[in-house]
């Protein structure tokens, strides 16, 4: 699938209204945290992972993308046309975090109800039942569904009307490892069909295996967006490799190598190398040295986030952002 732009968000902004009661005006509200003039492009068939700490604005951004929250300034375009909020909602399927489906209605009735809200046929609701694997539970009441089944139902509703973009907020929550695996395969098959997918998740390991590009969000701003490799390069991360050999490397191969760590036993030589030349592995094998292990070390998403924000692991993990922290230098308006 060619990398075709399906949607472009240009300088989109939204700020929550938070209560700031005064004795003469107990209902007074002021601007709180939010998303500050963010630019973002979604490409068909690509899966974007949205990563940030608690309070970074991930859910707010996903809600903006799906038309749940209004875009206060900036615009959303598709094929050069500015989209209204209604048109945005038509093109985006949204799966929020924590939807507790309950009631006596069946899974099928619920899907049909949302198919009507989405403007698609009853048949499409039945098709979606097959896609999400709930065909056998079509007549089950919502009250009887497990958490995983509820997640599938939420995904099914997001898929109604074949959206161009699928926005998923913490889709792996409450799923067992088998279900997560099935879910990932389902998302990959949807991406192959050309749907652009945005996923926010704290399951970094699962996310790392699934995504094509990564978006790092911090204090309502997009601090980095691109492939993991391009972000690593941009942030100055060098390629690392963990190597374990059965004998010492000859001098001619050691020339120009940056060895960060080195330890040896009688039978093994263990090294962590930086900026590894492309042909090094081939040359080692050709020189007759046995390679016990060879592993590329990728920086974790947390390390990337730390590097992008300039914060250390502890402070980035523990501190929940508030409005006072927002670097609103881009905003035209004064802070209240």
């Amino acid at each position, binding site marked *: 699938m060619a990398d075709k732009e399906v949607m472009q968000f240009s300088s989109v902004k939204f700020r929550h209204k938070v209560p700031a009661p005064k004795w003469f005006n107990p209902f007074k509200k002021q601007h709180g945290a939010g998303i500050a003039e963010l630019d973002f492009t979604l490409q068909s068939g690509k899966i974007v992972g949205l990563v940030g700490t608690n309070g970074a604005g991930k859910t707010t951004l996903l809600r903006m993308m799906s038309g*749940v929250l209004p875009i206060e300034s900036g615009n959303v375009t598709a094929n050069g046309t500015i989209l209204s909020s209604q048109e945005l909602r038509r093109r985006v399927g949204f799966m929020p975090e924590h939807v507790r489906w309950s009631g006596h209605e069946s899974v099928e009735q619920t899907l049909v109800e949302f198919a009507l*809200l989405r403007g698609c046929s009853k048949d499409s609701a039945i098709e979606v039942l097959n896609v999400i694997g709930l065909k056998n539970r079509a007549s089950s009441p919502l009250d009887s569904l497990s958490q995983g089944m509820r997640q599938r139902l939420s995904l099914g509703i997001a898929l109604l009307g074949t959206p161009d973009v699928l926005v998923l907020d913490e889709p792996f929550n409450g799923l067992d490892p088998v279900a997560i695996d099935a879910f990932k395969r389902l998302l990959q098959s949807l991406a192959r069909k050309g749907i652009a997918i945005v996923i926010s998740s704290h399951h970094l390991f699962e996310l790392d295996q699934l995504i094509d590009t990564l978006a790092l969000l911090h204090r309502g701003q997009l601090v980095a967006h691109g492939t993991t490799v391009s972000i690593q390069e941009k942030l100055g991360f060098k390629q690392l490799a963990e190597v374990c050999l059965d004998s010492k490397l000859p001098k001619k191969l050691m020339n120009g190598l940056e060895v960060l760590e080195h330890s040896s036993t009688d039978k093994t030589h263990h090294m962590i190398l930086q900026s590894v030349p492309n042909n090094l592995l081939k040359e080692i094998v050709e020189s007759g040295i046995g390679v016990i292990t060879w592993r590329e070390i990728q920086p974790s998403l947390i390390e990337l986030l730390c590097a992008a924000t300039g914060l250390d692991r502890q402070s980035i993990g523990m501190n929940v952002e508030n409005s006072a922290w927002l670097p609103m230098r881009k905003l035209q308006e004064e802070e209240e």
Partner: protein
Amino acid sequence: MTPSSRMWKLVMSVFRKRVLSTRMMIMLPILFLFIPGMAWGFSDPNIQLPADQIPETAAESMFLASIGIVFAGTMAAVLLAHDGISKDRQSGVLEVRLSQPMPRWRQSMILVIGNWASIAVPVTVLMLISMWLVGYRSDMWISAGDSIVFVLAAWLVLLWYTIFALLASSLAKEQGSAIAFSIGLWFLFTLLWVLFTTLIAALNGVPVGESKDASYSVFEGRLDLLSPNGVYHHLLETRLEDVNRGVSPTGAVLAALAWTFFPLLWFTRRIKGLVP
């Protein structure tokens, strides 16, 4: 399928859910006791009412029986609709609804009409039973014109309370606040309004103790335009003879239109800007 037909299908879905809900099963006997029960009582040929009031026509008996709608019908409307939005907000379903492309004004109409119909239909059936009971017991049969006005007025007062409950549900972050707000409003208009009217009348020098005093009656009638129950009774009074409470039938209809239009507008705007 056109957007309108989709909307009506969704209205029917809300209607079915509400009519078949457990709370409706609990409220139906109460509604039955209050609406046909009142009609049965007020159509008794030997009835003794305070101030020597004796219903002389079927419309008068139905007017007196309308207290059943004011007490039980409006309360049932509030109890049915109070969680129309707050329940979805708490479960996260509201977020899914708000992300759907159907225009928000249509979504608000689905909620209003669906919830309103779920109380209006049973109340209408019970009113028709009441009209038959009045005719059977007193041999005074209500005219077609009177019955239409009585049913339409009941529909309106139920609509107003449904909108109040949905508004409260949209304003409250959780169901407890939503029901407190709705019941509080019902309490004010249904039980406290007499006290409020009396207090305002007394402050304005109107003779409050004299129940037959014309000036108090006119004052009370005009103040009743500020209450949905009062406007409901004004609409019913357009079909009664010798009633003069200082409000013309046109005034009553205009007040009814205002009570319908402004809360509906407020609710529609609220849904348009609603955030989860």
